[in-house]
């Protein structure tokens, strides 16, 4: 596991504490026909899936942490364990100093949970009815409720949809309303599972800005999962990456580049369609006199690369970009795939 030690955590209060957690699922395996069918009926074959294996991490107060991993890595399982919906087979979990399983009721007064693929809104009622429901069920004192309602209504621009039925909202509007509802009881920590899933660019931007506002202005601790690495990088200060149920990286986003070798893209536009003799990189793409190379700046210092480029004849334009985080992480996923 790669762990960066340089993260600056000004506050030492631990909000999420996961220690040596393992979770095992059993999957039934079945043949399509023949003897396998009968055998499956009498003695079903089961496959053991290690959804989480010896997972340990802590999140401190005020942190904004991204939780990433490929499909089936164990992200949602972790979220469900933190929310008390699942019990680990091994290990201990505490959120805000409470056990999600044993102290569910007091914990839920302080915790906010949002799963992107489901809604807590009341389908056949206006949004403001769902908010009122939240106030009564969470027993939120009226002044706090009014203050939070005003805040989320303004920041998430909810006024035009407050009287609209949840079932008539667009996906983006529904997510905004769900997020707003989750925040009405001033949670100290929030768990978000794929909150930007399916949102368009504008809705996503608003969601990200709002989450950053909550983290900075209110000091809310946030743990968020997403498949969109660029979103995660923009929101979070720290990333936890899991693969095959194991924690494989814990640190800054930038630290990921050092693992993959700080890959950088150099695009050369040539006067004529003559391939430049560029020796430091791998050619990724060539089209109509534009050549894109991938260069590992950990291996070749930038000074040498620039010096070499200055000697190539016929260059019309040079563009140097860092490899997208999406690509860096994709490479890491590939590398960790199948790692025991």
């Amino acid at each position, binding site marked *: 596991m790669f762990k960066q030690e340089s993260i600056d955590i000004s506050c030492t209060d631990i909000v999420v504490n996961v220690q040596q957690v393992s979770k095992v*699922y*059993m999957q039934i395996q079945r043949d399509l026909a023949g003897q396998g069918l009968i055998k499956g009926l009498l003695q079903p074959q089961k496959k053991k899936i290690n959804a989480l294996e010896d997972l340990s991490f802590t999140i401190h107060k005020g942190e904004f942490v991204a939780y990433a991993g490929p499909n089936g890595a164990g992200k949602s*399982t972790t979220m*469900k364990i933190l*929310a*008390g*919906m*699942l*019990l680990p087979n091994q290990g201990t979990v505490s959120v805000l100093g409470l056990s999600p*399983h044993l102290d*569910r*009721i*007091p914990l*839920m*007064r302080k*915790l906010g*949970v949002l*799963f992107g*693929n*489901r*809604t*807590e809104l*009341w*389908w*056949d*009622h206006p949004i403001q*009815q769902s908010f*009122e*429901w939240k106030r*009564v*069920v*969470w*027993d939120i004192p009226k002044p706090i409720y009014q203050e939070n309602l005003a805040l989320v209504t303004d920041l998430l621009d909810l006024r035009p949809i407050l009287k609209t039925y949840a079932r008539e909202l667009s996906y983006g509007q529904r997510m905004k309303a769900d997020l707003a509802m989750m925040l009405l009881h001033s949670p100290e920590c929030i768990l978000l599972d794929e909150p930007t899933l399916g949102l368009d660019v504008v809705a996503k931007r608003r969601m990200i800005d709002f989450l950053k506002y909550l983290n900075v202005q209110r000091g809310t601790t946030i743990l968020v999962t997403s498949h969109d690495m660029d979103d995660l990088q923009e929101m979070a200060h720290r990333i936890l990456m899991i693969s095959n149920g194991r924690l494989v990286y814990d640190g800054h986003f930038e630290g990921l580049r050092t693992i993959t070798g700080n890959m950088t893209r150099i695009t050369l536009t040539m006067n004529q369609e003559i391939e430049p003799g560029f020796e430091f990189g791998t050619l990724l793409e060539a089209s109509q006199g534009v050549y894109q190379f991938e260069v590992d700046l950990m291996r070749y210092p930038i000074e040498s690369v620039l010096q070499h480029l200055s000697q190539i004849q016929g260059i019309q334009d040079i563009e140097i970009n860092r490899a997208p985080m999406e690509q860096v992480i994709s490479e890491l996923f590939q590398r960790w795939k199948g790692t025991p």
Partner: protein
Amino acid sequence: MVKQSIRRYFELMKLYAQMDLGWLLRDTLFAVLALSADVVGTVSSISGLFLLSWRLGGIGEWQREQVLFMLGFATLVSGLFQLLFTGNNTGHFSRRIGRGQVEHMWIQPLSFPMQLLTEGFLPFTASGNVISGTLIVVFATTLLSIDVTFVWILQFVGLLLTSLVTVVAISYLVSSLAFYSPVQAEEISTYVLDSLRHLRNFPLNAMPKSLQVTLLSVIPAGMIAWYPTTILLNTSQTSWRMSVPLIYSVVLSMLALTAIRKGLRYYVQTGIHRYLVHGHRR
């Protein structure tokens, strides 16, 4: 603690009553249609057997007025179940389990019993059977010239609640199967309660003893309306029989509670890898 729980219970009941009214009054056409459908459904559910018994002058050893009283009692039990447990599938818990919707319950800062005892309350859209059941019971009581004393009313209310507890306990007991087989057992409580609803309307007097015992124990259709009616109409002479429905409902409730607890323990171990967006909240 108890005082606070009672306060919270009534706050939540008030909330769900308001939400039910809001749902009913969303537009005129919808409100008229919903109320009309409720009336038609209620009348048709009891009219078949009632007309049959009236035409035949009774069923088995019972006169038609006695049959009418029993039907009224059965309708009231159904009505109370609909009033208190129809909303959000609280009375059909297997649907919540089978649809992966129990997870919604985990994130509310309320105990599960508190959630299940309040979320189903629909005083405006599901009170049809309570009204018609009450009217039938009052009508039959008049026809039978029953001496309605305070003790008799207490007996009546007690037996009514006992029958309601029995129905809810059966629903939860069978619903617990959905923890282990969510897809197949999603609708199990609906099927079981529907079967009981059809069976409970028949007086068991003329039935063979073995069938009576079966319908009062394994398939307790007789315990919902017929048996309590025998007590209320004094057709049963032994005083200890009053305690039978109570003991039965308590035992069944304990079994249901144990089954649901075991199921929930299984649920948090395995999870349910199935989530359907419809059905949790209407």
